[in-house]
């Protein structure tokens, strides 16, 4: 085998200009795919943290069976009762991976400053629990004023644009109105404790955060629509989800559990879009790699036809000829990928040092451009491109191996 590797390598060196052009094509392709994958990985990571922590979705959310489909049309029927809430919390908290389990109630209605009113969507949360969920990301919410507190049950946070439209700055008073579960109109005074940035322009003029008990008062109920769980490791999400589903069913609770990625529509859309772009880029790179290798190896095969005839005359079988060129293609692919790794590392370091930022569509503040270095992904990519490079070399080699030896030996 070493002899064939030696022949392959030396032939690449012999035709160094041609080999170099192919190596550069592979390296640039590898780098492009590697950087984009690193960028999407960083973006997905950021979106995941933003969904779990920033949006306060936690890792898992438990609903009564049917809530997601019919909850809005028959809210009362699909809310979790106090006894169900208690049971679910007890089961969830018994799992060592569950750091936090907290009930939430989402309400909707009108918010008014006394002169004008605006529709709102509000999330009723246990203030201390919500702070735990949002964790370090709470600082990114651009909070002006003070955060929610259980000590001020009527104190709420208004999304930035909503507060602006209603002219309700921190420490100002307003009124929220909604229909209770029994169909009565209910109005409660609020005090704006602060304003915050939801992160997206589409929700900044609608969202309100208010204490859980206050949301219950607005709907005149002791119920919740969901229980949010925070886990110690996001990668345990699927396993815990299955485990909890079994435990809740065993306890006679008819619930459905959704993970953060199922609930975050934005994450799903962005992920699907990036996955599609990645596939597109990868296919382009693959075509470039395969075509470059076929071109290089095709020329090499043509120039070495007599050598192939000689090797066949010496007893090399047809598959041996294919192997010889496959090895050469693999070396080409491998060296190209090695160049790609170096190029990828250099760009990664440059981005790390320059730390550029940009404003993505639908986001209200600049975000840093981050690219992750993914050794495992690079290894897989190198393996993939090397295999394709190898396969691309076999194609012209097969033709050469099938040439009649008399023709090959007489080739000039």
């Amino acid at each position, binding site marked *: 085998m070493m*002899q064939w590797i*030696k022949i392959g390598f030396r032939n690449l060196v*012999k035709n160094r200009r041609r080999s170099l052009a192919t190596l550069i094509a592979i390296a640039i392709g590898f780098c492009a795919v590697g950087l984009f994958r690193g960028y999407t990985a960083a973006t997905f990571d950021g979106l995941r943290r933003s969904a779990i922590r920033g949006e306060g979705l936690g890792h898992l959310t438990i609903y009564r069976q049917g809530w997601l489909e019919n909850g809005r049309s028959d809210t009362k029927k699909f809310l979790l009762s106090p006894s169900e809430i208690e049971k679910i919390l007890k089961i969830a908290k018994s799992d060592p991976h569950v750091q936090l389990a907290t009930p939430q109630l989402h309400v909707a209605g009108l918010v008014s400053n006394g002169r004008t009113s605006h529709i709102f969507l509000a999330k009723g949360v246990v203030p201390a629990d919500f702070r735990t969920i949002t964790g370090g990301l709470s600082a990114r919410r651009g909070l002006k004023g003070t955060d929610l507190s259980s000590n001020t049950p009527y104190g709420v946070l208004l999304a930035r644009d909503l507060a602006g439209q209603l002219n309700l700055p921190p420490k100002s008073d307003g009124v929220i109105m909604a229909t209770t579960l029994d169909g009565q109109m209910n109005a409660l005074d609020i005090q704006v404790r602060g304003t915050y940035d939801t992160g997206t322009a589409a929700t900044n003029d609608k969202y309100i955060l208010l204490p859980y008990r206050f949301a219950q008062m607005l709907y005149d109920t002791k119920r919740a629509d969901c229980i949010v769980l925070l886990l110690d490791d996001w990668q345990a999400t699927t396993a815990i989800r299955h485990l909890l589903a079994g435990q809740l069913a065993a306890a006679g609770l008819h619930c459905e559990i959704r993970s953060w990625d199922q609930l975050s529509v934005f994450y799903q859309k962005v992920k699907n879009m990036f996955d599609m772009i990645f596939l597109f880029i990868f296919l382009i790179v693959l075509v470039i790699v395969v075509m470059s290798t076929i071109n290089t190896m095709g020329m090499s095969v043509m120039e070495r036809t007599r*050598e192939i*005839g*000689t090797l066949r005359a010496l*007893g*090399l079988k047809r598959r041996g000829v294919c192997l010889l060129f496959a090895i050469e293609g693999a070396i080409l692919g491998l060296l190209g990928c090695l160049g790609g790794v170096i190029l990828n590392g250099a760009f990664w370091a440059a981005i790390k040092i320059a730390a550029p930022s940009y404003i993505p569509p639908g986001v209200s503040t600049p975000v840093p451009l981050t690219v992750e270095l993914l050794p495992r992904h690079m290894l897989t990519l190198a393996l993939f491109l090397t295999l394709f490079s190898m396969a691309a070399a076999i194609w012209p080699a097969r033709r050469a191996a099938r040439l009649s030896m008399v023709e090959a*030996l007489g080739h000039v």
Partner: protein
Amino acid sequence: MLISMQQVSKTYAMGETTVYALDHIDLAVDKGEFVGVWGPSGSGKTTLLNLIGAIDNPTSGAVTVNDCNLDDCTDNRASELRNRFIGFVFQHYNLVPVLSAVENVMLPLQICGVSTAEARRRAMDRLEIVGLAAQARRRPDRMSGGQQQRVAVARALIADPPLVIADEPTANLDSETALHLISLMRKINKEQGTTFVFSTHDQRLLAQVQRRIRLQDGRIQPDMEVA
């Protein structure tokens, strides 16, 4: 008997005409013979050697080499036969340009899976025989034509084949080098009993051979035994 050819023909189609490169040839070569094939250009010398060497297939007739009927051979079996039982020396040397002399000589053994160390040891032995041990690490482009052809002879001998086929091995060499090469082949033939079948135009070289086969228009003319 090492080589047997019975009623062997090889034809090529040229438009609507069929051209006989070899025309119903019968030939037998025993082990240890030193045979020179001669004749004018286009007489069928190379075709004859290609058929004996399992490089080409006859249009009709039977070729047997070392008790193996080449008609019955698959491509893989023919490759094994060439690798183990036949050594080749070509007019244009046909060395692999990116390999050194010793690496070129090692090739047939490495094709059949002999370890690198063993192949190198045996290759150095053969280079010693052809007087090129000192040039073992040189690549073909740094060697003269005569040296390259001696490397090719060493390569042909590496697997100790009972048969060596040489197609015009001296055509690109000057007279002195050509005679030296033929002497070397004759020496190996006598000392190791290796059968040599080679083609040439050169009458001076034919004076060195034990048996001459004259080809004309694809047919063998009467043999001439040389003392």
